[in-house]
């Protein structure tokens, strides 16, 4: 009986992952298609991989994509975590207001967020008579739509935290800073990590907001891919996705392998 339930749940998870990964499989398969068109299989070829490495635009876009995603995830986690700690200490009404502010960026359609942030930036430039859209504005906008998710990820962990531990640490002579890093931080770390991962994911995937807040010289992969739509997305992008996918999976495998023996010993 127990075994049956076990098999059933494995099967169910398998189905979920099949659903999530089927389109990725298609993507990888298409990266080996000789034809430029998605609709027509004209033979196995590595030509898109060869062309990918000759394309500085794609490499530059990949660089900016990863840089913005990593930086915005980090900054959003710092700001969001502090925000969550503060919110956790608020009175009920204050908390309600803070939570509603948190929900606005989540609720706004991307196009509205993107266009209104662009207007805000351009207005600030004209006010200070300096600056232009570019990497800085792109990063600011990504931190803005990521910070609420980072805060939301940490809040439930704080709720389940026993605040007496922190006070006890203070009573025992710890400075507030070391009390935070020694007592609070380890407890909420999983929430911070989830929030950062989620931020990274949202940042990599965003097109609309990025398009309107970036400027000349700074492109992300999303912007590059969407701009190819009229003329047909170049299969080089499929090749790049396949490589990215492979790298992530290999890294996961290595991390998994290194952790496994430790847990078995325990």
């Amino acid at each position, binding site marked *: 009986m127990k075994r049956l339930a076990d098999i059933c749940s494995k099967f169910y998870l398998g189905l979920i992952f099949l659903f999530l990964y089927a389109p990725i499989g298609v993507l990888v398969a298409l990266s080996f298609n000789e*034809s430029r068109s*998605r*609709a027509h299989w004209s033979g196995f070829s590595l030509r898109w991989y060869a062309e990918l490495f000759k394309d500085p635009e794609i490499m530059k876009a990949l660089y900016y994509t990863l840089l913005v995603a990593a930086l915005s995830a980090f900054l959003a986690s710092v700001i969001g975590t502090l925000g969550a700690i503060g919110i956790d200490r608020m009175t009920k009404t204050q908390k309600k207001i803070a939570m509603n502010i948190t929900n606005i960026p989540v609720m706004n359609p991307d196009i509205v967020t993107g266009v209104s942030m662009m*207007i805000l930036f*351009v207005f600030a*430039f004209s006010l200070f008579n300096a600056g232009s859209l570019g990497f*800085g504005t792109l990063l600011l906008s990504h931190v803005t739509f990521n910070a609420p998710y980072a805060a939301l990820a940490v809040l439930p962990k704080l709720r389940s935290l026993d605040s007496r531990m922190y006070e006890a640490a203070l009573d025992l002579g710890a400075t507030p800073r070391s009390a935070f890093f020694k007592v609070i931080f380890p407890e909420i770390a999983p929430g911070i990590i989830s929030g950062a991962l989620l931020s990274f994911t949202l940042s990599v995937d965003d097109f609309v907001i990025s398009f309107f807040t970036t*400027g000349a010289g700074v492109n992300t992969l999303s912007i590059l891919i969407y*701009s190819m739509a009229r003329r047909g997305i*170049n299969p080089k992008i499929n090749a790049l996705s396949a490589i990215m996918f492979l790298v992530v999976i290999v890294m996961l495998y290595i991390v998994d392998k290194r952790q496994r023996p430790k847990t078995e010993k325990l």
Partner: protein
Amino acid sequence: MKLRMMAIMAIAASALLSGCQGSDDSKRLYVYNWGEYLDESLIGEFERQTGIKIIYETFATNEDMYTKISAGGSNYDVIFPSDYMVEKMIKEGMLEKIDFSGLPNFENVGDRFKNLGYDPGGEYSVPYMYGTLGILYNKTMVDEPVDSWDILWDEKYARQIFMYDSMRDAFAPALIRLGYSINTTDLEELEEAKRSLIAQKPLVQAYVGDMGRDKMIGGEGALSLTYSGDAYLSMLENPDLDYAAPKEGGNVWFDAMAIPKGARNKTGAEAFINFLCDGEVALKNTIYIGYSTVNMKAFEELPESMRESPVYWPSDDVYETCDVFLDLGDFIKEYDRAWTEILVG
């Protein structure tokens, strides 16, 4: 501690906002083009010839580009708007006049492509690529001759038809069939075209943007409203496909090059436009892109398969029956309302 952190944040923010712009604008050129719409090896060639560094960015639609440029805060030197968008940007004072003394290669551009309705004086734009709007069809599914827009309303092809999802393109065949201009600003005519598109809706498999091409290559439908350049490329992938420019007339479109107001490197921009008008360069570019060139010198050098193709190069008769899209100003809101009614219905 808190103050220090805030000060650091403020400094970081202002450093980020001000960006790091190089001081020598004459050695840099910001180009804003459609994705995949330039043989990118030409960028290196231009850089070697002139010593000007190109910063190349891409956009997906005219409207995306327009919204970005009109907000300000971005400094492009050369942009690639389509016909009606050139007109709109001229009207709104968003383009610089081009100094044609710096463009000796402009003489390579065919005369019939100059001074068109969207830029009557020919002062603000130089055409880049062009094509017609017609019907791409699958010969194995359609055995009658395709020569009229009426076939897109033929019930025989129910759920086999693809239409464009952009409203101006979708309205064009309906308006032409009714004998109206594709630039109509008459509410009655628009209403009639709307009713005709509502009647057509059950026959349409999908309103597509750019996937129409792949759909037809994959044999997913019989007929598709398609631009000639895309039709030409699709026919290379799938020999069952053919393209027709209907006899009632249609639309001829242009993508042009222009210089936005406030460009920091106008002479560089003119040099780049001149470079793209060079016969050899235009030849390389049109072969890479597959859309029809406006450059007569390049046209003469084309391989016969392209030069003789009625899809790549429409005959004079066809060209004469076609109109260019013009900017409709505020009347576009009426199109939008009619389009929503079609989709809700």
